[in-house]
């Protein structure tokens, strides 16, 4: 809280935090490298750590995905890389300006900040936001700095209710009194911004999306079971993942997930548990190897006696994706998971959490989840 106030004042005085200084230093290194290349009449290039499946490895002991040492060379004097090279440096210069002025901006904001027509041409520096987003991630790995250290944030996504009080930017927030919408989890939840004050909850139930979360909130599931209820709006953004990670580690709360029974749901679980391939460098801060998968399971169709009308047929992409997930090193050796995925493929259909509503509106909150929790029936 104190720090945030300071940085707001720093807008004029440009007083920098230690983290800012570190980021600026690595930014300068990046830029001076270009100058030194030019000085020596060499063609400048950047070695960007590779953010692909080939460059991640599964750390067996820590049970998280880690980024390997592989890099991709990005050269200024290479026909296909010249523009990307320029864009990388532009993002760097944008971050520099933000840090200097002590301001933060959204990803979209940065896109507009850097987007302009290249002098003497009709070409734009960036055509779509996806281009800046990719470059930002490259700069993150290049500088070994997180997005928030570049003074950037994503749009807020994800909500939280439950028996916890926290401080966000100096404001105390009681998450038991959040009405029907819940506390919106911000993009940056680092200890400088969010501190936990009083946590009485015993576990966290993370659901896939807003609609399911509303069901649980309305039924006051978190009151009955003394837990924290979160959702990530599909694939949870970094803010949500970081918050879950912190709650798990700092408050010692176990986490259970209720996700759709489809490859997409499996992958959300995988990202929460081991980290994502794209952001493998963030796994240490984000992955929660102890997270448990509560549902929905492929066997629930029979167990819960669902009707055929709730089935959604697997398409080719789903089948391909499921096989891909089954082959990930972190799923490969888990027999229950292999069985689970095999069963889904054998079923030939997927199930959404909402399908349980066909039984009863509150079936999921009053029967399904409590039963599973009681039986301890979940996948690891």
């Amino acid at each position, binding site marked *: 809280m104190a720090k945030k106030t300071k940085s707001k004042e720093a807008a004029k005085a440009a007083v920098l935090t230690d983290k800012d200084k570190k980021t600026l230093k690595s*930014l*300068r290194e*990046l*830029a*001076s490298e*270009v*100058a030194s*290349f*030019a*000085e020596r*009449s*060499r*063609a*400048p290039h950047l070695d960007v750590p590779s953010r692909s499946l080939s460059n991640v490895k599964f750390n067996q002991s820590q049970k998280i995905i880690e980024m390997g040492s592989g890099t991709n060379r990005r050269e*200024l*004097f290479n*026909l296909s890389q*010249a*523009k990307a*090279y*320029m864009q990388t*440096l*532009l993002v*760097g*210069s944008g971050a*520099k*300006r933000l840090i200097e002025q002590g301001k933060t901006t959204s990803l979209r904001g940065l896109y507009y900040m850097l987007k302009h027509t*290249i*002098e*003497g*041409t009709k*070409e734009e*520096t960036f055509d779509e936001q996806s281009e800046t987003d990719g470059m930002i991630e490259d700069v993150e790995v290049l500088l070994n700095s997180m997005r928030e250290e570049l003074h950037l944030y994503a749009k807020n996504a994800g909500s939280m209710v439950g028996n916890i009080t926290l401080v966000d930017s100096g404001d105390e927030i009681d998450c038991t009194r959040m009405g029907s919408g819940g506390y919106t989890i911000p993009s940056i939840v680092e200890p400088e911004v969010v501190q936990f004050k009083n946590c009485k909850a015993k576990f966290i139930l993370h659901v896939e999306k807003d609609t399911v979360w509303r069901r649980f909130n309305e039924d006051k599931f978190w009151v009955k079971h003394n837990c924290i209820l979160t959702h990530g709006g599909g694939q949870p953004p970094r803010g949500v993942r970081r918050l879950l990670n912190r709650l798990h580690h700092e408050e010692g709360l176990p986490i259970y997930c209720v996700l759709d029974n489809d490859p997409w749901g499996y992958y959300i679980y995988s990202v929460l548990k081991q980290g994502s391939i794209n952001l493998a460098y963030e796994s240490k801060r984000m992955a929660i190897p102890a997270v448990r998968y509560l549902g929905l399971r492929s066997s629930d169709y029979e167990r819960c006696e669902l009707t055929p009308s709730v089935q959604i047929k697997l398409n080719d992409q789903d089948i391909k994706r499921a096989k891909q997930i089954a082959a990930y090193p972190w799923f490969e050796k888990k027999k229950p998971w292999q069985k689970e995925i095999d069963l889904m493929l054998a079923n030939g259909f997927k199930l959404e959490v909402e399908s349980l509503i066909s039984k009863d509106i509150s079936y999921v909150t009053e029967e399904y989840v409590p039963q599973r929790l009681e039986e301890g029936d979940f996948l690891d």
Partner: protein
Amino acid sequence: MCASGKGVPTLSAAKSSRLGSSQKALDFDDSAEAAAKSNGHGANGHAHPEKANGSAARSGGEAAVGDHDEPPADDADRPATKRRATAESMATKQRDISVSEFFAKNRHLLGFDNPRKALLTTVKEAVDNSLDACEEAGIVPEIWVTIEATGNNRFKVSVQDNGPGIVKKQIPLIFGKLLYGSKFHRLRMSRGQQGIGISAAGMYGMLTTGKPVRIISKLSPKKPAHYFELQIDTKRNMPEIINGKGEGEDIAAGEKGHQQMQKQGIDWVSHYPAAEGKEPQEVKSGTRVTIELEGRFIGGRGSVGEYLEETAIANPHVTLHYKDAEGNEVSYQRSTRDLPPEPKEIKPHPYGVELGRLVTMLKDTTAGTTSAFLTESFSRVSSSVAKKICDAAKITTRSNPRRIGRQEADALYQAIQNTRISPPATDCLVPIGEQLILKGLHQVVPGEFYCAATRPPAVYRGNPFLIEVGLAYGGVSSAQKVSLEALTELLGETDARTLRQFLMNTFDGIGSEAADKIMTEAQMGTRQSPAKLKKEEIGQLHAAMRNVNLSEGQSMQVLRYANRVPLQFQPAACAITQAVIANNWRSYGLSQSRGNLPQGPVTIMVHMASVWVPFTSESKEAIAGYPEIQKELRLGLQAVGRKLGMFLNRKIKVRQEGERRSIFLRYLGEVAEAVGVIEEYDEKKKTALYEKLLHVAKRKTVEADTRLDDRGKKIEAAEEDFGENVLIVEQPDTPHP
């Protein structure tokens, strides 16, 4: 019934062929008589008119065969009517056929099948002879070709050279007797081979116009020149001298002679064309032959102009002056004064000799023993090889070759085939040479890239041969060079039915695709008749031909040569064309659809030099595809193809470098700006960084720079890249596609 049914059509065929041939024979007799009258040699002319008629009727080979078929095989089927002829009566009509008579009727065998080709063949034979004579005498050839229209589809063709001249005694025989020459009996690389050409041309002229062949030949500036007017007695295959009471005329040397020639209307180029202000030099010796013939003068493909142009390519040591029937004059200047080395005459190689020839050789030899016969008559046969052959044939080496019988000769022949004999010496071949091919191509075919490859000599059927390939890339097609007037004329004289056909037939390098492109551009129907075009339409067509980018739709132009003589007809039947088509040009950067010539502004010339070029027919239009020849062709084509591929690759690379540089330049400013922001540079420092980056960019794309900055100058050919014998000409205003 069956047999007679078969007999009837044969009979009628025989009749009709007899009718046809007697008709021709009559025509011929007329002209012969006419010639005889004008000549005053009555005795020679009308031998036995009736008999001549009859014999002419029999002389066609087919007719004779028909006669033999005529009597039915089975007596029972013999028709009741009276027998038409008896063996005795038929015997009275069976007699010798003179070579001249035979060729007079089978003129197509010698390339006189149509008036247009007759004109070309005449020029061709005369020029080939002139070149052979000059080279043999060691004179740098200069040839004057003149075609004059004398009306009534008749043309006067004159070809003069600066060769050694011909001695008086030989002139009538060389020009007035078929199958008389120096080239048939020796194995030596020369243009002519059989000794039919020029006399056949003279005979054709005589048959179609009745005019004699006129020859003037000068041996030295001081001696008088000889002037002959000749006709061929086709029955005897002998020359008849018309002027000077059958003796020919002598024309005095020097100025007096020139006046005499002018008075008599004899054309003679007395002086070489000289540069401005220089004394023209006298033509010291030479021969000029003038033949008047019925012909058709059409430009374009297969024309005299094309032949001379192609000759100039393969003979860079020759200067050609050409004045066509429309009075246009073209000169192809030589690009070197070095004559090709004199080809050596060789003895035949044993592998190339057939049994029949072997038998004749055995009979004719003067050698005392078979061993001596073998070593003396053939190349590469040492006495030990001869012994091996004799042993294998079970003939003693000391046996008399003239007494060797048919059986033994056959054994000898088989023994030769089974004995290992080293391949013939190949120093008898004189290639044009890669350097001269480049010069020749560059002189005549406009382009930006030239390369050439001369293959080492190889052997087919015991005959040494050698393949040379030259390639020119780029430049404009002949269709784009043509003027509006020339196009109008070409349209007027073409016999193509449709405009599309006209375009494809007349212009080199226009394939069906390019023709369609032009038609679309000109907004004309493809089936439009070329003769009926209005003036504006011709203008439209002309503009379209200029505007359409033909280099894409253009198909490769293949120039074929055999012993430096261009081959203009029957491309599809020729081993050269087949090899070009079979080659995979796609791997060298040209587009090519299966079974077709590749596309692109490419001219390829292929020269086969050999002591005996295997033509598919007597008209010497296509080379036969022996496997050894095909292999050499393939290797030669691949050699130039690789170089073309490298050039095209580099061209693409240069273009890409250019693009690359502009892309880099585009981003350099942004990069310098971004670095400036992070490093908090001032403007000066930022500019300095930009300059430095620019420097690196330029260095990186230096290849593109040489082209962009030094426009109009030659790109330095990367000698080490292409290897030798490559010529690159910078095209200052080639539009980039």
